[in-house]
Structure formats: C-alpha cells, structure tokens
C-alpha cells in the first residue's frame, strides 16, 4: 500500500463561512495515486484532549500540497480552525477506498450536502478531465453554505442548487431536487455519487433505487485508527445475502448505497 504519516505545516487558511474553513497544507503525496473520496487522518501533535485524530476528505491535491475543507462542529475541528499558517499538523493518508469512475458514456449525477461537497470536488475534476457529462447537485441550509458552486461550474459541469430555506435555487432538500430531475427527464445511462449526512445518504439511496441507478455514497463514522485495526468505524453492509460489519476507513468510506443496511447510528 501507499500510506504515509506526514509531518506537515499549515500553508494557508481561510474562513469560507463562519463555521466553514478551507486549509492548504504541506503534503508530498503523489496526486496521481489519490482516488477521489479518499481521506486523511489529521493530528494536532502532542494533544491529549482531544486524544484522537480527525478524518477529513482530500478536497484537492497538487504536488507538494493538499487542501481540506471542513466544518467547525466540536473540539477537534474548533482547535484546528484556530491554528495559523506555519503551525504543525500530522497527516496520515491517503486512506480508504474512494469513488470509482463509471463506464465511458455514463452520465454522472453528483449530490453533495453541506460540507459533503468537500469529498466530491476531486471526483468532479477527474470526471470532467475524462469528459464525462456531469451534473452537480449542491444542497445546503441556506445560500451562504453552498460550497464549490463556482469550481463545479468552471469544470464544465451542470450545477443545480437547493437550499432548505429557499434562499437560493430549489427550496427543499437536495435529494428531492435530484428525484424531480430524474422524473422529469430520466437519463439513459447514469450513476449517482453522494456525500453528506447519513440521513441524506439514505434518502439518496432510495432515489437511486427508485430509478434503478447505481448509487455510491461516502459514509462517515467515528474513527480511531483509520488503518483498519481498531474496528471502531464499522457499519452494517449486506453482501451476497448476508450482512456484516465493514470498516468505513478501509472497505469505505465509499459504499454502494444498495448494500448499506440503513438505520445504523454513528
């Protein structure tokens, strides 16, 4: 395998919204070997509280540096958001199994909820590089939280927006927008890719099933090691008729939505 623990430094930081942070970090991983949807496990060295690392998807990567995009939700992300350029972080990665690109000629419908878009930008980029038709559905609470809309549009993808409060685009859940889009104009050959909160992924799985579209979702779970060892990050997955626990950090984070036994708690 191809995993490293890099002693890195923060190169740049920007608040995109009051609780959304973008960071550029030193990192020497080969961009060509990073799959879209893979993640890194970030440590603020020497801290004992929080004790554990925090997983963040690789938002963008270039030779010598990697970008992440994260939301401040608790102690770990709060402390990270306070760090300034020059300060040290350790990056373990690239980790997990990412999104596989579809057969040529397939239309890719990409559905991101909130900060879930961070996991999808690399996928959009790779798909567009190979000239797939891409439609991107971006959902958020309100317009200030719509992430990556310009980047997606610039890549040549068709961009759909949904906000829960109706402050921009479709008023409602982004999965409802996807369902409408599919009903009004069912595509020939298409695949759904999604990342966002677990209930949204479950809703997307239903939309995908209703339209008989292969659907891939990136899941989240609390993580200990992120190396497949602690068995802390499992979710129930159905394969060949029987269900068993699989690790989000190793078998995932991307799973085929139809195989996920929804209803688990993380």
């Amino acid at each position: 395998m191809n995993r490293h623990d890099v002693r890195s430094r923060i190169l740049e930081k920007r608040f995109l919204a009051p609780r959304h942070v973008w960071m550029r970090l030193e990192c020497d991983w080969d961009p060509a070997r990073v799959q879209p949807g893979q993640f890194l496990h970030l440590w603020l060295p020497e801290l004992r509280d929080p004790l554990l690392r925090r997983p963040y998807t690789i938002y963008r990567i270039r030779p010598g540096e990697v970008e992440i995009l994260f939301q401040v939700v608790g102690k770990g992300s709060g402390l990270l958001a306070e760090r300034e350029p020059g300060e040290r972080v350790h990056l373990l990665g690239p980790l997990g199994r990412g999104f596989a690109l579809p057969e040529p000629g397939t239309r890719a419908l990409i559905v991101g909820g909130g900060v879930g878009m961070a996991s999808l930008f690399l996928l959009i980029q790779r798909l567009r590089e190979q000239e797939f038709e891409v439609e991107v559905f971006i959902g958020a609470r309100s317009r200030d939280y719509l992430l990556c809309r310009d980047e997606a549009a610039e890549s040549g993808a068709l961009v759909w927006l949904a906000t829960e409060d109706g402050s921009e685009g479709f008023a409602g859940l982004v999965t409802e927008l996807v369902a409408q889009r599919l009903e009004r104009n069912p595509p020939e050959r298409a695949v759904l890719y999604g990342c966002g909160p677990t209930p949204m992924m479950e809703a997307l799985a239903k939309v995908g099933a209703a339209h008989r579209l292969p659907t891939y979702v990136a899941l989240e779970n609390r993580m200990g090691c992120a190396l497949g060892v602690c068995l802390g990050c499992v979710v129930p997955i159905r394969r060949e008729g029987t269900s068993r626990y699989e690790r989000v950090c190793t078998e995932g984070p991307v799973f085929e939505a139809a195989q996920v036994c929804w209803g688990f708690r993380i």
Partner: protein
Amino acid sequence: MNAFQPDMRVNIGGFQMKNPVMVASGTFGYGSEYAEFVDLNRLGGVAVKSITLEPRAGNPPPRIAETPAGMLNTIGLQNVGLEAFLTEKLPYLRQFDTSVLVNLSGYTVSDYVQLCERLSEAEGVHGLELNVSCPNVDCGGMQFGVDPQLLGELVAACRRATRLPLIVKLSPNVTDIVTLARVCEEHGADGLSLINTLLGMAIDVRTRRAKLSRGVGGLSGPAIRPIAIRMVWEVARTVSLPIIGMGGITCTEDALEFILAGATAIAVGTANFVNPSVSMEIVSGLEAYFQEHQIASVDKIVGTVQVDG
C-alpha cells in the same frame, strides 16, 4: 558514539523478547495493517487481537467515543475466529523476527482450553495471553477476571492444555487486583498483563443517548495511566510473576514509568491509533535511555521506584 550496549532482552516467564516493547491486543490488528509505519522486526513482541473459537461479528455501531485524554470502545471481540487466524493471519506474522503473543477469549473454560490446545500446535505462536477481562460482551471472560475461584479454575485448566508461556491479562475493574494476581500465580500462570480497559460510559447530552451502542465500554488511553501504574506497582510488590504493563503509554517516559513501577515489558495500545510509529519511537527511546544512564539490562530498573515513607 556510545560504546555501551545495554542488554534490552526480557523474559516474561519463558516468553522471550528482544526488547521490552510490545503492542497491545486489539490495537495493532494482526500486524500487517501497520506494515508501512512499523518494522515488526524491531518490536519486542506483538499481542494480536483477541481470538475466539468461532468468528465474531462484534457489537453494533457506535463503537467508540472520545473522553478527556481517553477513549471508550465497545468493539465486542469482533474477530476472524481461530481457523482464519491460523491460515490467514499467523503466516504473515511468522515472517518477522518478533515474539507473537496470541490473545484468546471465550465463554467457557472449555473454549479457552480448546484455544490453548490448538494454538499450542501452531508454528510461530510464542505465548498465550488469556483475556479474562473484556468488558464488551456479556460473557467475554470478564466473569473470570473478577472472581478468584473461577479464575483459578480457568488458569489451571489452560495450564494443563499448553506448554507455551501462559500470560493472564487481568481486569482493572476489581477491588483487589493483588488477590487475583496471586490466584494466577498459584495456578500456574507464567506472567501477567496489566491492565485491560476500565468500564466507562459517556452520554451525548444533545440526543440524550449513550455514546456507545451498548451503553458502557472500555476506557483506555492516557487518562487511565495512573490507575495502571498503581496496579502494576501493587502487584509487582507482592507477586513474583513478571508483568507486561500497559494503559495509556504514549512515549518513552510513560514506558519507563511502568518499568520503574514493576513491569518487565510494556505494551502500547491506544497510542498506536494516534501515532502509528509510536512503538518504534519507544524502542529507540528506551535504548537511548539505557545507554545514557549506563544501565546494563532491563531488570536492573524493574520495580525500582522509590516511595518516601
């Protein structure tokens, strides 16, 4: 250049290690997962994840939660089972020059005995560690770990079932760890592992639900180190079995704390998750410490902590 070469070898009742640094059961998988970060040839020993006779699915998520300087887990002994361990996992470990301690767990004395027998025949198993202290299954051996009578019977039965070094991993969730340690000694154990996790619980105040699916789980990490050090010290003073000390070790200094308290070897657990190469750093750190202080061998400082009064 320092010409002084300390002898870092240790012996836990026949379980020989080239240095006192192990990785703790359940925190290092079966070795291969850490291949990019740890040179297994440099480690004194590896304690593999608890093995049961049959494969086990483990507990539903959520399985882990963070606490101040610690973590809770309720993995529930998810493991591939004895057969898959022997055919799929053990051959990988055999490639390395490190001592393999197989941790085993069961519902009944007969489970443990069968595991001891089967594992004794396997090539590349250097010692057995009885997990009588898993808090995360209704019958995970924990009943043995808290009851001197049951523990004695279990250790005696396993003793008859194997000639491999037999190490008992005790639970810290007891009033009197010394009595249980003595029972192990009297019934033929070769060494002790101290400590397994402490029973703990955490609640998500927002949802008013327990953070772990089963409510309670095992607490590990730096938070528990003072408790582990105390238990190692208590046992080392009164029982002559060699001890593998663990609980919250994150660096060389922590490892030395255990050795001074009375541990002959130490195991790194939760810290592997945080810093995957920490066990290597401790191997080097201990070597440097022994060189710097011109300590000829590990046993010279085991249990030498001074207490005032």
